[in-house]
């Protein structure tokens, strides 16, 4: 374990540090020599074509996979050895399809955010307050007793965000969260993420809609097996990185708000 490094960590140290990471599925290389740091308070948008290794990079960052070469640290620990689940919130790619028929209420789903704090035993007053506050912040308090599977895509997204907020996570990771969500809800959803990021939550998300992510993110990383770009969204839009990463006939679909 590398816990001593965690306690000595400088507050401004990166939350995630990916160093010269390569990863392959069998013979197929997915990531080659990728290095990227995620500083506290960042809103990082990961973009890239289908099959560019975005989800894999996310899984490596969370320690769900181990790199073939290179290293990943998460909150100062080696990512796969990191064990303080309270600090991480994760929204999987297919949440709009998850558990359609499973009779789980909004409150039950948000309460799961407290499970890493309290796996057995009664919830404390602080636990309950965290759950209520989380539902309140994303505006789903009035849906608390509805079944998650019977909500719209946009409402369901907010349930999963609330689950991360209930755990009082420092890092929120989302894998293509707005697939299956209508355009209006998508804007609201990004606005919510922006607000949460402004209060200090570090956000990393994968997004196929480059227009919306460059509008709200504070940092863009463009990936296609290798890291083509890592930096300011405006700079990303004004350069031709996109064409290089995607091939020639790609352009940003502009969003006018």
């Amino acid at each position: 374990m590398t816990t001593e490094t965690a306690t000595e960590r400088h507050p401004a140290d990166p939350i995630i540090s990916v160093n010269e990471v390569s990863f392959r599925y069998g013979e197929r290389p997915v990531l080659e020599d990728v290095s990227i740091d995620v500083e506290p308070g960042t809103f990082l948008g990961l973009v890239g074509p289908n099959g560019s290794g975005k989800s894999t990079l996310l899984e490596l960052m969370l320690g769900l996979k181990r790199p073939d070469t290179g290293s990943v640290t998460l909150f100062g620990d080696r990512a796969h050895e990191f064990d303080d689940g309270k600090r991480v919130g994760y929204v999987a790619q297919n949440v709009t399809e998850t558990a359609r028929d499973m009779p789980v209420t909004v409150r039950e789903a948000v309460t799961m955010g407290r499970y890493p704090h309290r796996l057995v035993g009664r919830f404390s007053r602080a636990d309950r307050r965290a759950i209520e506050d989380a539902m309140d912040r994303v505006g789903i308090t009035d849906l608390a007793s509805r079944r998650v599977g019977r909500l719209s895509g946009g409402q369901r997204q907010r349930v999963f965000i609330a689950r991360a907020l209930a755990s009082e996570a420092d890092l929120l990771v989302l894998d293509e969260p707005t697939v299956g969500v209508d355009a209006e809800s998508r804007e609201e959803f990004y606005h919510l993420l922006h607000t949460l990021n402004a209060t200090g939550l570090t956000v990393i998300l994968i997004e196929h809609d480059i227009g919306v992510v460059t509008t709200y993110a504070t940092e863009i990383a463009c990936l296609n097996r290798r890291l083509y770009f890592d930096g300011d969204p405006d700079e990303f839009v004004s350069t031709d990185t996109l064409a290089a990463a995607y091939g020639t006939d790609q352009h940003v679909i502009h969003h006018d708000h």
Partner: protein
Amino acid sequence: MLGWLLGELAGLFEWFLEDVYGAAMGLLAEVLGVPMLGYPYMQRAYLAAVCVAVIGPLVGTFLVHREISMISDTLAHTAFAGVAVGLFLNATFELSLSPLLTAFIVAVVTALLVELLVEHAGAYTDTSLAIVLTGGFAVGSILITATDGGIAVGIDAYLFGSLATVSKGDVGRLVFMCVFVGGLVTLAYRPLLYVTFDATAARAVRLGVRRYKRLMVVLTALVVVSAMQIMGVILVAAMLVVPVATAALVARSFKHSILLAILAAEFAAIAGVTLSYVYGIAAGGSIVVAAIAVYTVVLIVRKLPADASLRALNPSNRRQAGRSRDVLEADGGDEQQ
């Protein structure tokens, strides 16, 4: 020390079975004028069925909503191989193993093997489960025919279940399983729910997902083998699936769905055992048919408009209708997907 404790427990259980439960059932038999409730073997059958109807849906709820309920059928069929292994060893080496013991061992080992394979391959597939299911059953049938004479006797009881063969020891084991499985599920309820609902996120927040997935399949093995004697190898999976599907139609929350699934299973178990006695038909089959009947009624009633289901109220479906209306109010009458 352990022996003494087990002896005490067995004594306590016998006292409960005869002087508490037996006496209460005897009284019920007199009051209702239903003599079968007074027969000790029927009392044992009811208690056994009631226990099966608790642990089946309790574990089945997690399996069904993880969409791996096929695992219960698979483990039941490999448990049959376990029974055959026991009978084979007994006949060949003149041992006196309980076939249920070997069934427990084979089912638990298979459960863990399947889970380890899944951890490497990534997901359960119909194909791999079908291979294990038929493979287990095939090994069972080979061992039975390879065993010298007389052993085909009693195989029917394992295949189709039997109430007549439920001994005091069997009921004791089922009551113990009820407490044991119930206790484990209560202790591990939160991680089991999280893993069932969103396994990837559960891994991301370091919930020890592998441990709980293994626990889930081991519990399944324990439940199918415990219930096998009454339900039969072929039908036992129904007890983990049908009441859960019924409850999922109308439940207001996950906890509520577990409660409703157990209630639906209890109704089916008691109705099934009663029909089985009255008409002299198979208990396992009667219980499954009763469970499916409850499912069908709930499915139909919740599709009816609220006022129509009110008019349809009669003593036999009042409970289902009441549930259905609650849900229509609770979710604004959305169509089930």
